[in-house]
């Protein structure tokens, strides 16, 4: 298995632990990742609100780079995934738009043909590798670890563009947790809700309340940890957790893992390799639980 790897901005900046864990997972599963080092920001659903054609041209340049490699793109961020999928589907469906965008990117030496697909790492692990294969490669068990999987928005909606699993009752992360003997909390209604991060500057009250709802609901379901496929959700649930605690005047203290961190551990990686010390939420208790 070989993919063009689009890490996105956060995995290269504030959330490098996600990049590290992704590369460990890839190595353990024999997945070759060719990093798209010249790819620029996906726009995060914001740049298109200023200049949609520019955002689309930048993303078409990324697609063209993957086409030159003859590889499909794998992302580790749901928002990157959503933004890229939006532009890719528009470009594939609309010939006139494709010509217009090709007219722009041809001025910097690229041409987009429409031969590329995008997958999130979650889908690669769940389908291309497969749950049965993960079970076979299990080294460390997550036995007794109760995991609340938080999907967030941009890996599920819009369903027509994602077209992977049911957007109301997704289960790919739960199945991966169970592949490593973890206890998946299936009944966690907030798992398809918004983490709130995108309004954390414009409307702090709304953002912190959404974050608090997701965290508290996981705690009410006795989760030991939360798991997310998106570094933006991770920023909301982990990095912003101290701010949320202050806002709601209540200690939460629930650890939040990036998806590939927990998978890397299950595949035999040492916890110390996974950058858990960079997390803002309290990881000590869960580290002790896993080590015991």
């Amino acid at each position: 298995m070989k993919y063009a790897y689009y890490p996105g901005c956060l995995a290269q900046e504030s959330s490098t632990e996600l990049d590290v864990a992704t590369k460990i997972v890839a190595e353990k599963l024999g997945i070759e990742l060719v990093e798209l080092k010249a790819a620029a920001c996906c726009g995060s659903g914001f740049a298109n609100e200023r200049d949609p054609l520019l955002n689309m041209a930048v993303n078409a340049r990324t697609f063209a780079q993957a086409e030159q490699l003859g590889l499909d793109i794998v992302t580790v961020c749901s928002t990157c995934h959503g933004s890229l999928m939006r532009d890719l589907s528009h470009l594939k469906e609309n010939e006139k738009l494709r010509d217009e965008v090709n007219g722009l990117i041809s001025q910097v030496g690229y041409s987009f043909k429409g031969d590329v697909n995008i997958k999130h790492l979650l889908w690669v692990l769940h389908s291309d590798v497969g749950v049965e294969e993960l079970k076979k490669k299990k080294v460390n068990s997550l036995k007794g670890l109760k995991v609340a999987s938080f999907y967030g928005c941009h890996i599920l909606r819009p369903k027509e563009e994602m077209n992977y699993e049911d957007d109301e009752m997704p289960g790919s992360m739960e199945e991966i947790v169970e592949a490593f003997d973890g206890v998946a909390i299936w009944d966690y209604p907030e798992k398809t809700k918004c983490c709130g991060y995108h309004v954390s500057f414009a409307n702090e009250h709304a953002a912190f309340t959404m974050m608090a709802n997701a965290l508290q609901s996981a705690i009410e379901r006795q989760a030991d940890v939360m798991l997310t496929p998106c570094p933006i959700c991770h920023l909301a649930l982990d990095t912003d957790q101290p701010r949320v605690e202050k806002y709601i005047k209540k200690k939460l203290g629930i650890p939040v893992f990036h998806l590939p961190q927990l998978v890397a551990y299950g595949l035999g990686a040492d916890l110390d390799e996974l950058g858990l010390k960079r997390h803002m939420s309290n990881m000590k208790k869960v580290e002790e639980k896993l080590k015991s």
Partner: protein
Amino acid sequence: MADQARFRIFRYNPEEGGKPRYQEYTVEICKGATVLDCLNEIKDKQDGTVSYRMSCRSAICGSCAIRINGHAKLACKTQASDVLEVYDRIQLDPMANMDHIKDLIVDMEPFWTKIEELKPWLRPSSHDLDGSKEIRQFPEGFNRIKAAAQCIMCGACFSECSTLAVDKDFLGPHALAKGQRFVDDTRDADTVRRLNHLGQKEGIWSCCHCYECYKACPKDTKPVVRIGEVKEAYFKEGMPKSHGSKHVDVFYTAYKRSGKLNETTMAFEIMGLNLFWWMRNLTWGMKMQLKGKAPSPFQKPVEKIDEVRKLFDIARKRREESHK
């Protein structure tokens, strides 16, 4: 051949003073039966007291929006068999983000108030209104507002909106999408006033991009996309900057800088000299520094950054020319 479907319906009657409860029913369903067909079957043959709104049965009037297994949909556009492919029973609740009146009927007053605040009618210039000529609209102009004009005011997006669920003052996806219908209408001349209203803190900038409204909308209005178009118009008109507009700008200007989001300078660019904000977040920021969560503001650009910068310049020139 008919199959059996189990229904769990939210019941509430304030006149009886009772608490909300769920009541179960079983219905024989045929292929193609909608949830509304099943509700009518229950009301006609099993329990005439079950209350809900309905009219056209053709996904045109927007009356029958209810929550089906936790997600707002038109009951007349949702086939029972499709629901049962995912769930083992069909649970019906009134729409969210609105008060309950009886059973599946909600009070849509807040929904309509936010629409009324928009002044949802065309406000052409006095010059256009002098009666000397017809105010015409061409297909390309109509295509720009077609999606929002298709809205049937069912309330499904209002019910599912993540921001409204936590902030009742948010204008809501329905009103913001309707706003786009007027802001981008070539015949309307009230753009600046409209953008001032839509661009308030509780307007376009408080949309969290969750795409719940996109999912809920039965008519392809896709409110979240329309909200993006209002923001585009907001920038085109050179409206005042806000935290929300600066957040958008950070991503746009990244293309002429490193090609990547600069998370460390982002907070400075958006919050500026808001000392209250900085004081409030001081200890949190220090913890981020200690944890290595605050990357260097001096970023290494993506490879071949000149290409991205050139695209930025080309796009800017195109936009400037189109504004002339």
